[in-house]
């Protein structure tokens, strides 16, 4: 049942999938076209959009486009730049420029680290109960001696690291 629904979806959109459903008017476009929002201007991942940036040209710009049809050696550098700006919204350098966003992000991250540290500190002072007696140094020493006496984990663990002849940790 699911496969039939999927197949009828494919037939309805003429193979375009969800794109075809959402923009049925553009169904006449060919398969290789990108969705409309990337056609407005270039992106680093799609640097040569299908449509030029400026579609409404003044008389002067139309004359320039006519001149472009001839030999490009006749174009001056300023005209070449003007034609480029007609075709593309941003140059590669402008498109790939860095930003200061990372400073905002890192600042917010560190701020929340600090805030969390304050919360944890408050919790330690006002919420946590007394530590049990077994965490005092004296108790821990006796406990360690007891575990060594009973040879707990003698193969690779604790007692394996104690030298019973020299009564010290193995080097």
């Amino acid at each position: 049942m699911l496969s039939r629904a999927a197949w009828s979806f494919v037939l309805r959109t003429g193979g375009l999938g969800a794109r075809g459903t959402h923009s049925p008017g553009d169904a006449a476009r060919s398969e290789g076209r990108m969705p409309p929002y990337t056609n407005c201007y270039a992106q680093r991942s799609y640097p040569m959009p299908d449509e030029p940036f400026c579609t409404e040209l003044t008389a002067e710009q139309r004359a320039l486009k006519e001149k472009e049809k001839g030999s490009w050696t006749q174009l001056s550098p300023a005209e070449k730049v003007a034609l480029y700006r007609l075709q593309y919204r941003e140059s590669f350098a402008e498109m790939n420029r860095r930003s200061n966003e990372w400073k905002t992000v890192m600042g917010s991250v560190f701020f929340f680290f600090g805030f969390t540290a304050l919360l944890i500190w408050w919790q330690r002072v006002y919420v946590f109960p007394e530590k049990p007696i077994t965490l005092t140094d004296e108790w821990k020493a006796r406990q360690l001696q007891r575990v060594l006496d009973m040879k707990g984990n003698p193969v690779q663990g604790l007692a394996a690291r104690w030298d019973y002849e020299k009564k010290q940790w193995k080097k």
Partner: protein
Amino acid sequence: MAYPFQLGFQDASSPIMEELLHFHDHTLMIVFLISSLVLYIISLMLTTKLTHTSTMDAQEVETIWTILPAIILIMIALPSLRILYMMDEINNPSLTVKTMGHQWYWSYEYTDYEDLSFDSYMIPTSDLNPGDLRLLEVDNRVVLPMELPIRMLISSEDVLHSWAVPSLGLKTDAIPGRLNQATLISTRPGLFYGQCSEICGSNHSFMPIVLEMAPLKHFESWSLSMI
């Protein structure tokens, strides 16, 4: 028992646990290899300015990364099943001990020859002797002969519990109305600690298990003294 800053398992005190340690090493190595490969590929993906937006299919690599994980899974499953069947081998136990889980203590019955049964409650922190392990010590330890196979029959009188001793590779659920069997054998004398491993109420964390594995003579004199 566990010791501070321990990273891996406790040392094995039974042959099955030794097998499990080796199996864990084998599987963890595979896991590390896969994880480092994936991390490396992720770092490659994230550190390039190149883009490629027209990938249609990749049949060769798709085949490889379907067949290879299947082979890896088989290489993990075969040792695992081997150990699973090894645990169920016939071993002629010399002794049978029954343990019943209660809320919130264990009771033990040695009924092969005489009737010996006792309860085993955790010693509260305030009653510990200096050097004892908090939340692990019990008033009556389970004394057993070392180096002999022992049949443990495990069940429960009320809710689900689980009788676990990690250094012997044992964990068996205690289910009311059901008898579960586990085989216990220790290669070494000493004390082996475990804790209840199935949530059973408010004091689930406070019903530990302590096995005292001793030479047969010591076990015999202890059981005489306990009757």
